[in-house]
C-alpha cells in the first residue's frame, strides 16, 4: 500500500491548469497459475486516473474488480488498488503491423493489491508487465501480459497471465 501512496503523490504533485488528469476504463481477461486464487478465467474491470491527459508517461492509479467468469462465480470476486507506469513510448516500432491505425508501443509496469470480498480467502499482491502495449491515440491494447503473484507477506506464489486488456479514455 505504501508504494501506491508514494506513487499517487508523485503523480499529482506537479499539476497545473494545462495538465488536466484523465480518466479511463479498462476490461481484460486474466488467469492464474496458483489455483489458491482462482483456476478460473477471470474478467477484470478497471477505472484509472492518469495524472496528465497528454503525457504518455504519466502514472495512473486504478481501482479494479476481478470476477471469475468461467466458471462464473461471484463468491471468488476481488477488488484491487494499484498503479500503472508507462516505461517508454516509441512511434516507430516492431508491433506496428498489429494495428490498422498508427500506434505507439508503450510498455508498462503495474503493481496492485487485490482483496477478496469473501474474507475467507487471502488477499494478494501482483506485479505485472505489459510488454506488448499499444497506444492508438485514445486507447491502449495490451496483449499477453505476465505478472508475478505474491502472498500478503510478499512471498512469490505463482504467476498471472492476461491474454488481453483494452483501455479507453473518457474525453
Amino acid at each position: 500500500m505504501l508504494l501506491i501512496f508514494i506513487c499517487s503523490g508523485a503523480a499529482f504533485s506537479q499539476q497545473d491548469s494545462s495538465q488536466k488528469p484523465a480518466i479511463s476504463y479498462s476490461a481484460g481477461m486474466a488467469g492464474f497459475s496458483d489455483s489458491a486464487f482462482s483456476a478460473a478465467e477471470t474478467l477484470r474491470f478497471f477505472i484509472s486516473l492518469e495524472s496528465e491527459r497528454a503525457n504518455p508517461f504519466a502514472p495512473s492509479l486504478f481501482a479494479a474488480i476481478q470476477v471469475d467468469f468461467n466458471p462464473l462465480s461471484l463468491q471468488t470476486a476481488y477488488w484491487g488498488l494499484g498503479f500503472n507506469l508507462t516505461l517508454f513510448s516509441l512511434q516507430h516500432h516492431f508491433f506496428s503491423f498489429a494495428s490498422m491505425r498508427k500506434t505507439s508501443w508503450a510498455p508498462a509496469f503495474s503493481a496492485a493489491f487485490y482483496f477478496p470480498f469473501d474474507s475467507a480467502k487471502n488477499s494478494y499482491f501482483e506485479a505485472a508487465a505489459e510488454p506488448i502495449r499499444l497506444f492508438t491515440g485514445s486507447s491502449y491494447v495490451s496483449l499477453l501480459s505476465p505478472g508475478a503473484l505474491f502472498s500478503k507477506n510478499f512471498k512469490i506464489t505463482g504467476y498471472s497471465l492476461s491474454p488481453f486488456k483494452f483501455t479507453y479514455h473518457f474525453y
Partner: protein
Amino acid sequence: MSFFIFAMIAPPSVAHAQETAISLGSWSFFSGSPGVFTSLGITQGLTPRLEAGLSLIPRLTPEPFEDFYAEAHLGYSLAANRFQGLNQPASYINILGDIGIIAGISSIGAPGQTLKKSIFIRLTPITLGNAFYGRRDRIYSAGALFNLDSPSLTFFLNFIISDFFIAKRSN
C-alpha cells in the same frame, strides 16, 4: 476431412484471394477444467467469401501446456465479401460463420491423459477490418463443440481473435 486438408495446402493461386494472416486470440471452453487458453494460427483467404484457418490452442493457466489442441476450420463471410483485392476495400464490418474440427490432448502427462476430437460450428457476429486494412478483429465468437468420442455438446467463446495480414496494400 480431405476438403480441410486441401483447403490448407492448396496454393493461393488456385483460389481467387491470396491474403494470409497470422491470428492471435483467446479460447474459453465451458467444459473441462477451467483455465486460460490462447490460440495462435494462420488464416488463408480462398475466395472473396471463403477462408480457411489453422491454429494451435495451448492452455496457459493454471498449468501451462497441460492441455494442447489444434483446430482447422472453414469460414464463410455471411454479410458481404471479405476480400476484393488488396487495393480495393471490402466491407469493414462483417459476420462470419465457421465449421471446423478440433483435436488434442488434455491432462498431458497425468493419469487422466485423454485424446479428444470434436467438430464445431462458430458464429462471429462482428468482424471489424479485413486484408485491405491489414488487420481484422473477430469479436464475441460463440460456438458449439460436438464431441466425437463421447457424443455430447459443449460450448466455447472467443472473446477476440485478431488477424494480422501479412501482405499490405500498395497504396
